[in-house]
């Protein structure tokens, strides 16, 4: 459970986001204008801020810039209906930690908030273990129980990303951005094909599943024990 501040002027969007995030167990504060949002962000402690790019009174990016200048480091996700190519970079320059173009899928927003809230498991660790799965990032090898896995470099990266976030749902877009390091939304089945191939390597005959498909959202890696 996290305390999230939503700064969004469109009441309908705010209601949907509020409903979805509450359903996931978060506590939501809502501000509908730039100045109001800025005041809320200053006066209370939040785990993350979701703010719209276009706000009445004070522009979303200005709110964010003011916060950052005042030393507030709360993770922030910028929402925008504007074109994504330049806007994304502006949002990030203004101090946003992530950017999502409208219209967005609620699950994508939730997954990105999760990603902002949860620090990945010890980033200095080079040997990662989830259940019976173990990978060695330096040696570039992986094992499931006693069985050696033949992993390609990209598959190793994919596993690393999932294993640092066990139990967390990651969307296809997030995976593509983080593992392939390019920004755009490829056709969903492409990521699925990569995940499918990885799953075939991880889950040999009779072994329980490690990577689970979360319908309509993405994937999650859960311990098998």
């Amino acid at each position, binding site marked *: 459970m996290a305390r999230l501040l939503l700064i969004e002027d469109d009441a309908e969007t705010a209601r949907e986001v509020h409903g979805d995030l509450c359903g996931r167990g978060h506590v939501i504060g809502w501000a509908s204008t730039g100045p109001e949002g800025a005041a809320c962000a200053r006066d209370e402690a939040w785990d993350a801020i979701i703010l719209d790019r276009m706000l009445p009174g004070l522009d979303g990016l200005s709110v964010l810039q003011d916060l950052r200048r005042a030393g507030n480091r709360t993770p922030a996700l910028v929402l925008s209906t504007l*074109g994504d190519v330049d806007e994304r970079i502006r949002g990030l320059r203004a101090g946003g930690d992530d950017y999502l173009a409208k219209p967005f899928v609620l699950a994508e927003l939730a997954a990105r908030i999760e990603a902002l809230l949860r*620090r990945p498991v010890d980033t200095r660790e080079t040997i990662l273990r989830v259940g019976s799965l173990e990978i060695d990032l330096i040696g570039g090898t992986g094992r499931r129980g006693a069985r050696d896995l033949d992993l390609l470099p990209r598959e190793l990266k994919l596993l690393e990303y999932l294993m640092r976030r066990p139990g967390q749902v990651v969307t296809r877009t997030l995976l593509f951005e983080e593992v392939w390091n390019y920004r755009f939304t490829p*056709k969903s089945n492409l990521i699925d094909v990569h995940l499918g191939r990885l799953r075939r390597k991880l889950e040999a005959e009779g072994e329980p599943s490690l990577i689970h498909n979360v319908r309509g959202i993405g994937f999650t890696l859960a311990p098998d024990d």
Partner: protein
Amino acid sequence: MTDLLRSTTFRWALGIAIWSVLLVLATYSFVYWQTAAYLREELAETLRLEVRAAAADPAATAMRVETWIATDLHATHFGGLFGPEGERRSGNLGAVPDGLARDGDAHRVSANVDIAGRALRDEIWAAALALPDGSTVVIAHDTDEIDRVQATTLRALGLGLMPTLALSGLGGLLLAGRARRRLAATEAAVAQVMRGDLRKRLPVGGGNDEFDRLAGNVNRMLDEIERLLGEVSSVGDAVAHDLRTPLTRLRARLERTREQANSVAEFREAVDQGLAWIDQTLAMVTAVLRIGEIEHGRRFAGFALVDLAEVVREAAEFFEPVAEDKAVSLDVAVEGGIPPVEGDRDLLFETVSNLVDNAVKFTPPGGRVRVGLAREEKGVVILVEDTGPGIPPAERDQVFQRFYRTERARQTPGNGLGLGLVAAIAKLHGFTVDLRASPYGGACFAVLCPQGEAKGREWARGFAGRPLPTPDVAPDPRGGTRP
């Protein structure tokens, strides 16, 4: 008529007429001046010689004067020998003309002359010399002849000038009229275009003159405008059509579910299907907006030096599993030492991805797709070739249009926006995309990135010209700093 007077072409024609008249005048004046001067000098020389000869031998002076007068048939020769007191001794001049210098040179003077026994006042050219005994000999000639020649020349000038003026004026009018008629036809055509008839074209003559070339260029411009408008309207139609299909399905499905579904599972299944269809329509709308944004936005914020070799390799790698599932072999051939290009890394990856995606999609199982990066004469080229059915030459220009799908493509999933996006991204970068003959027999898309041209400076300017918020933190724009 006032229209005619106001028109530029008429004024030009009038100017030309006046100019040619001035030229004729100048020429005539020169001829006139030269002729008159020549005749005068000829006569003066004769008079000088005659008066000198007459004065040379005082005993024969009277006789020479008489002979001078006698050799004349038209009463144009005059002469006289006058005593020291001015009395006439011989000749047909009444007296030594007033003011005539006795220097042996010819002067134009007025004198009394006897012609056929009558004394007349006449203008003459005369030369006089003093004889040793104080008498004066005068040899003279009528000025009429020269005056006549001058008058004739002037008359000829006058006579010639009228037709010149008339003819050049007429020519000018004809030219002006012709130009006016052509302009009027052009104006009428333009007016029709302005009223919205975009199919109307300007009349083009067969002469290939400036008018024809201008009209030809305007016509090509109209062709382009018509094509673009056609594209816009067909894009609108295509968007509407492609949106209607999933929405119709969605509506039918919702209606049927509402009537027939009995369990939560059935409802959930219908909702999932509905969400998938909505996602499909949203993806299409997003793609259309993205193309527009890339085409019109001059978006350079994401520009930096990009290693194309890495982009090409990673795009190929990204599609490797899909190709393998389809039993299509995917080869990568990247030439070494390719210098980085200026561009948006994400957009370039998207471009290569779209091309590879198409190649894999249209190549039948067992075929090959080859993704290459090579140096060419004009720059660096990204090549995506396949052993698929290829694209018929007639359709090669159209495939880059939004929503265009070849006959074959209609049977495969897709929205016909991939190549439109490729074209828009290439254009933003100043790259060109074309279809080449593939040694593999299928389609071969080539993205040419020209080397060493001014594109970089352009994006640098675009970048510098736009004030960006100063970052407190310096995030990696690739999103790599996300905790």
